[in-house]
C-alpha cells in the first residue's frame, strides 16, 4: 500500500462502518476514524510494511476505541425514543422486528467498550474468537468471556419481555 490516501480510498468506507458499529453514532464514528487516521499517518512506514494494511488499520481502530475507556459510547435511537429501553412488545410483525433491532442497537450502548468490541468483531466483522483476539490484542478466551458477558447483559436488559425471544 503506497499511502494512507490509497488505503482510505480502498477501505475507508469499510473502516468507517466498523467505527460506526463500535462507537454507536455518526459523530463518534468520525472521531474514531480521525483518531485512527492520525495513528496510521504517524506510523505509516510500519503500516505499509504490514502483511495486511487493512487488518492493521482495523487493529488500530479497535485499540483506539477500547483504549479510551472514558470514550462515551453513545447510540442513536432512530425509531422513536429512549422508551425503547423499556420493554416493548416486538410481536411477529416487520415493524416489530425493526423495533427489536433498534432496541438492541440502543442496548449495545450499555456494554463496556471491551464487550462491545467483542460483539462487533464477532457478529459484524464475523471474525472467530481467535481472529478477534488478534485484533484486540488479547487472548481468545478473553474474547469469549467478553462476548458471553455482553450477550448475558443484553439478554438481561431485554428481559423476557412480551414477544421478545432473545
Amino acid at each position, binding site marked *: 500500500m503506497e499511502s494512507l490516501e490509497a488505503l482510505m480510498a480502498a477501505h475507508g468506507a469499510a473502516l468507517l462502518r466498523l467505527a460506526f458499529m463500535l462507537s454507536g453514532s455518526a459523530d463518534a*464514528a468520525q472521531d474514531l476514524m480521525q483518531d485512527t487516521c492520525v495513528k496510521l499517518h504517524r506510523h505509516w512506514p510500519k503500516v505499509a510494511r504490514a502483511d495486511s494494511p487493512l487488518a492493521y488499520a482495523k487493529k488500530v481502530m479497535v485499540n483506539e476505541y477500547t483504549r479510551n475507556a472514558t470514550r462515551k459510547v453513545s447510540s442513536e435511537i432512530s425509531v422513536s425514543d429512549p422508551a425503547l429501553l423499556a420493554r416493548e412488545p416486538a410481536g411477529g410483525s416487520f415493524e416489530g422486528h425493526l423495533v427489536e433491532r433498534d432496541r438492541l442497537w440502543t442496548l449495545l450502548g450499555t456494554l463496556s467498550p471491551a464487550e462491545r468490541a467483542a460483539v462487533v468483531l464477532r457478529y459484524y466483522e*464475523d471474525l472467530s474468537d481467535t481472529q478477534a483476539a488478534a485484533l484486540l490484542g488479547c487472548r481468545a478466551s478473553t474474547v469469549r468471556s467478553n462476548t458471553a458477558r455482553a450477550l448475558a447483559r443484553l439478554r438481561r436488559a431485554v428481559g423476557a419481555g412480551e414477544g421478545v425471544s432473545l
Partner: protein
Amino acid sequence: MSDLERQLRDMFHDRETQAPAARPVSEYLGDQPVKSSRRWQWLAVPAAVVVTAAVVVGVAALSVSGPSRQPAAGPAVSGIRGEGPVWDSATADCDWPYAVEYLPKKDFAFDGTVTAIGPAQSGGPGDDRYLSAVTFTVNEWFLGGSAPSLTVDMPTPQESGSGAYGTGTRLLVAGGPRWGGPDPTADAFAGGACGYVVYWDAQTADAWRTASIATGDINQEETSYPTNASGQTYGNLPNSGEGMRTEDIPDLIGVKGNSGLYGYITKHAFLGGPPPANPSQALENQATASPVTVPVYASDGVTIIDYFTIGVGEPVTELNQP
C-alpha cells in the same frame, strides 16, 4: 447460534446503511473545524495553518490526489516573539499534555533560535503538507542531544496568532524521533499541539532545565550519558553515585546550585582532585579540606548559570571511593 446472536447480525447488517460517509484523509488529519467532541492529536494542526499553507504553496499543492505532495514552506518572518506555548493546545489529545514535569518523557528538549524554515524532511509516504523543517541554532540542550544545531519538523508557522514563529524566534522545543528508534533526534519531530514548543523566557527555560536534570537523566545507565558539543558527557548520578567507579562518572554532573538552579559541575570539581593514594592521605585531605565553591554550568559545559559549594563531608566526597 442463538436468536440473540442472529438478531445481532441482522441488526448490524441493517445499520450499515446508516454509517456516515468517509471523508478525505486530509480532513481527518486536520482541516476541519474543531468540534467540542473532536480531539485533535499531535499531527492535527489548527485550521489556520492550513489557510497559510494554501497561501504559501497554492491550493493545487493541497490536493490529496495530486501526484506529488508538496510540503509547505513556512513564511520567513524574522523576530516573532511571544509568550507561552506557540500553539493553543486546548483541543489537543495528548499522551502527555504539557506539564513541565512530563518533559523527561520527551526524547529531546532544547533552547534554540530559528535560523531557517523549509520543506518537511522527516516524512515517509504520508502527508506532510502542514509541516515544515525548522532549523535551530541550539543555545542549550536539556535532553537528548548535543549538536550545535538541529532541524525539527514542526507545524508550519503562522505570521501571527497561534502558531506564529519565524527566523529569529527563540523557542523551547521538545519532541522525539518521528518514526521511533534509538537516536533521539533522528527525523526530529515536535508536534507542538501538546504545548512542548514554547516561546523562550528565562523562567520557563529554568523550569525545563530543572525538570530535565532533576528527573530526565536519572534513569540513564551509567554508560549512556549524552554528550555535548565539546564531547563531554553529562547527567545525574544514579543513587547519588554510590558504588560508581570514577571512570563511569560523567564529565559534567547534575547538581542543584546555590541559587536553586539545576546545572552541572565538572567531574574534576566534583572529585576534588586525584583520589588519595592511601588511607593516611585520605584522612589528611579530609582534615585540611575546606568548602569550595565551583561554577554550575549548562549542559554545554561553558555557560555558567549558578554556583555550587562543595563542603567537607558532603555525600559527593564519598564518591571518591572506588
